[in-house]
């Protein structure tokens, strides 16, 4: 339900959105709702509302007049528990740039008990290209059948298979008996190449058929291959799906898929991308994804913000529940908040030299938006504002423990990313040095197996000057998997 006359909600924006944000949201909405552009989702009435909202908000004077008529934001701070930590409590006034780390932990308030969780609307999009032949496909089939039994009666499941084209295996459980579904799953056969766009588009269409604000709408993409040439339309599709409240989990099987692409795809929807080294991990991965979806307290979480001219975000990362990189542009899709696990975000900010007039500095300013299905008006928002005093003296400070813990593992993940960059720039020696450091740090933290993988990989890199596909995946997702551990063991 969109409240009448709130132009910001019409464009899914926060009230402090910048002109860039407004333009971006408008273009996305036009692409989706313009009746001439999009035959599936076009909606003339909605389009006119959006046009109207944009006319006002894009004009600074009209916007200011309109803002004055808006009622104050309802207080929804009691729906979300926010804890934030900053690596410094006071910013020194320096003549050179400095880094600041902010850790934000979002969780369900203790006094709220989750009685029911929203029903699911999920679509499995399964790669059936020839590389899936044999054990891989048979494990996928078994895992899909098992997933069927994990669902509740009011959940909706559809399955799409794809190679260089997509087929809808079935849509929605209600029309079919479980044994009919099982038969359909068991008949999946491999053939052809991998064109992710085909599967993705078809999966999103199936989800849209049953889309419902009160459901958790989720797409699970499993692939073991690379898609060629259709990456960009895939990413655009993901952005549109996110606007409809669809999130995506990507599962990359084996070592021959494009990790940067699938990370990006999931990230645009607040979802995550996982690496499955072996087909035996599929069943567990499916199970964990469905379990998490049924533990959702708040979904469609996003952070819209504006930055002061002397603050820059150089890195944002989600550490829990599912670690992954986040886009740097507002609004950042953040996924969901689970019943028992908090959502933790790490920001690395670059602060430019501070002038004499800065007594305080607002380092982050924005709004968290989220949906709680059990609420009568599920759309909620709560402000997030972090302001630090600026001081002329540079007193040493010990950063809070949660920040140190988060950075101790995040630094390791970053080392391997930098090593990849070194190799891309042809600097083998630097990459090798970095990986050696990484292996030592991992050994110290007791991650012997991962450290040994890195040692072996480093030896190979000295000869080949590049990462092996397997080593790259193992090291990237291995160090990424360490991120939640330090957070969760130190509540």
């Amino acid at each position, binding site marked *: 339900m969109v409240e009448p006359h709130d132009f910001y909600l019409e464009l899914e924006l926060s009230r402090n959105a910048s002109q860039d944000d407004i333009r971006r949201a408008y273009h996305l909405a036009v692409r989706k709702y313009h009746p001439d552009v999009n035959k599936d989702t076009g909606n003339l009435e909605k389009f006119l509302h959006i046009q109207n909202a944009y006319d006002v908000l894009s004009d600074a004077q009209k916007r200011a007049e309109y803002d004055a008529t808006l009622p104050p934001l309802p207080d929804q701070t009691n729906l979300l528990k926010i804890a934030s930590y900053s690596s410094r409590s006071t910013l020194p006034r320096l003549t050179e740039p400095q*880094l600041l780390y902010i850790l934000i932990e979002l969780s369900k308030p203790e006094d709220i008990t989750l009685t029911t969780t929203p029903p699911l609307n999920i679509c499995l999009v399964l790669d059936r290209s020839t590389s899936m032949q044999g054990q891989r496909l048979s494990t996928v089939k078994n895992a899909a059948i098992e997933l069927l039994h994990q669902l509740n009666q009011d959940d909706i499941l559809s399955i799409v298979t794809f190679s260089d084209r997509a087929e809808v295996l079935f849509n929605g459980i209600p029309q079919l008996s479980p044994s009919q579904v099982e038969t359909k799953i068991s008949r999946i056969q491999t053939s052809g190449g991998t064109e992710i766009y085909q599967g993705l588009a078809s999966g999103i269409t199936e989800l849209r058929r049953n889309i419902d604000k009160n459901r958790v709408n989720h797409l699970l993409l499993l692939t073991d291959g690379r898609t060629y040439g259709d990456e960009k339309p895939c990413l655009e599709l993901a952005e549109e799906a996110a606007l409809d409240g669809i999130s995506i989990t990507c599962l990359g099987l084996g070592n021959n898929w494009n990790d940067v692409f699938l990370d990006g795809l999931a990230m645009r929807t607040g979802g995550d991308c996982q690496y499955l080294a072996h087909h035996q991990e599929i069943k567990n991965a499916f199970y964990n994804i469905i379990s998490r979806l049924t533990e959702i307290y708040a979904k469609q979480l996003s952070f819209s913000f504006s930055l002061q001219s002397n603050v820059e975000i150089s890195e944002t990362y989600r550490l829990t529940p599912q670690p992954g990189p986040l886009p740097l542009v507002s609004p950042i899709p953040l996924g969901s908040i689970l019943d028992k696990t908090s959502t933790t975000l790490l920001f690395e900010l670059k602060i430019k030299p501070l002038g004499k007039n800065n007594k305080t500095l607002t380092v982050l300013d924005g709004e968290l938006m989220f949906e709680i299905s059990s609420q009568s008006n599920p759309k909620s928002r709560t402000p997030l504002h972090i302001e630090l005093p600026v001081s002329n003296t540079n007193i040493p400070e010990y950063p809070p423990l949660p920040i140190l813990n988060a950075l101790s593992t995040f630094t390791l993940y970053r080392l391997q990313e930098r090593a990849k960059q070194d190799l891309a720039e042809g600097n083998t020696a630097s990459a090798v040095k970095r990986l050696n450091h990484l292996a030592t740090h991992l050994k110290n933290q007791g991650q012997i197996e991962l450290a040994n993988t890195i040692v072996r990989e480093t030896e190979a890199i000295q000869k080949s000057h590049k990462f092996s596909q397997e080593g790259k995946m193992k090291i990237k997702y291995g160090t990424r998997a360490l991120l939640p551990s330090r957070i969760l063991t130190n509540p």
Partner: protein
Amino acid sequence: MIKCPVCNSEMLEGVIYCLDCGARLHSSVKIEATFDDSLIQTDRFKNVPGKQTTIVPSQEIYLVVLQTGQIFTLPFEDEYIVGRTSDEQPIFPEIDLTPFNGYQGGVSRLHATIKAKDSSVTITDLGSTNGTRINNVRIEPNNPHPINHGDIITFGNIKTRVLFYK
């Protein structure tokens, strides 16, 4: 700018872990220490110049290499390996005694660990060849031994002093 003591990279102020090698960097302020060197008249380290400086109380411990006056700053709630780097093996201890003639001084590659956790500080010798001594008493390996402010810890022949204020 901050210079990483391990890899010499220059980092922006405010950085907590070196982005190039992952070493934990201490705060941007120089930590200085005052101590009395009357205790350190041993046969090998006669007349080691003591440095007259002041210490900033904080949640950190300081390990001073007596020969040079170099100070390692070790924040609490962590464990640090003392040793030296090696060409053959990828070992990068947090407290690397290579620049202090660690090899000639009989420091093993993985010599000992210092654990600063829950407001107590302990040292464990990792079965090093030439042993670790607290105030000139050799400790048995693989068992944590408590250390106190002012103790002199010897790794092989390299003498260091531990300073901490709680």
